């Protein structure tokens, strides 16, 4: 029952986020609004972490499988983009690494004081 109750809370907050986005035409998607709503509820103690944690962690742990049907869906667009697939893949392959390295280095350089969180 605990699982169902927690899922109910999370789904309700997700719904609230979606409604807020469509109602006020926000550029931020509903699920991101949902993150903010849930975070604020936790931060201001309106909701205890124990009331969402188990189911929430379960959902997060199994996030990868949820992307499978989306990935299969991309196949539908392959026809539309087949002339560019090589180029698109090249853009992704090159720029993703550069973005990762630059943002990672920036944080690392600026957080020199935070050595306690270093792995090594």
């Amino acid at each position, binding site marked *: 029952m605990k699982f169902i109750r927690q899922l109910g809370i999370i789904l309700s907050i997700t719904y609230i986020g979606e409604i807020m986005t469509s109602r006020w035409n926000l550029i931020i998607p509903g699920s*991101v609004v949902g993150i903010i709503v*849930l975070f604020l509820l936790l931060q201001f103690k309106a909701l205890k972490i124990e009331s969402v944690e188990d189911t929430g962690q379960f959902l997060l742990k199994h996030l*990868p499988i949820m992307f499978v049907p989306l990935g299969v869906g991309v196949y539908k667009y392959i026809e539309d983009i087949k002339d560019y697939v090589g180029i698109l893949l090249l853009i*992704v392959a090159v720029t993703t690494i550069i973005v990762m390295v630059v*943002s990672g280095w920036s*944080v690392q350089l600026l957080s020199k004081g935070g050595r306690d969180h270093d792995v090594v």
Partner: protein
Amino acid sequence: MTWFSDPLFGVAITFLTFELGVYLNKRTGLEIMNPLLISILLIIALIKGLHIDLGDYQKGGSLITFFIKPATVALAIPLYKHFDLLIKHFKSVIIGVLSGVLTSFASLTLLTKWLVLPEHIIISSMGRNITTPIGMELTKQLGGIVPITVAMIFFTGIYGSLVGPWVLKFFRIRHRTAMGIALGTASHVVGTSKAITLGEDIGAMSAVAIPIAGIMTVLLAPLVLKFI
């Protein structure tokens, strides 16, 4: 072929192929044996080979993707638990994500200039490293082609989560906050699902980067386009 039109077909085949991917991944210990990738490729091969309608598969598939939204909302949990980490590194997190977003624009511009690509490809690629719902909105706003963006966001996520741990190691990104921000900024939610496996705090920082990177990209993209 009415057997495939039951939603349970899509659900079952997704779980089975994913489970097979998990097994192969454990068995070989290879990063490329990614369960997500294996599952997708097997399903595509299957529906192509047996001439199954993609819509039939998606009847079950949509039941699984339904959970992406609540799972995304659940990212508030690690964020709440590691909020002190974000506050402590607030300035470096903001600057880190911003530098990632600007690098994304700069590298895209240079690459597309060099390859002489049509404008709609450039426009549709601007949001490739941010989360799907924000990226789609951005492309619509800029007048690009949404399927291109969706495909690129997907490639970016899978690719980022595949090479991410290796890139972090190779470029000596060891600070845990930096690792999370790097994965989240470069490869959104799919990268974050990888970040969670590296550590809960890394996952939390990766999750923090997603909306920040998304909002910064949406706000800056129109300005950047003026200068291209």
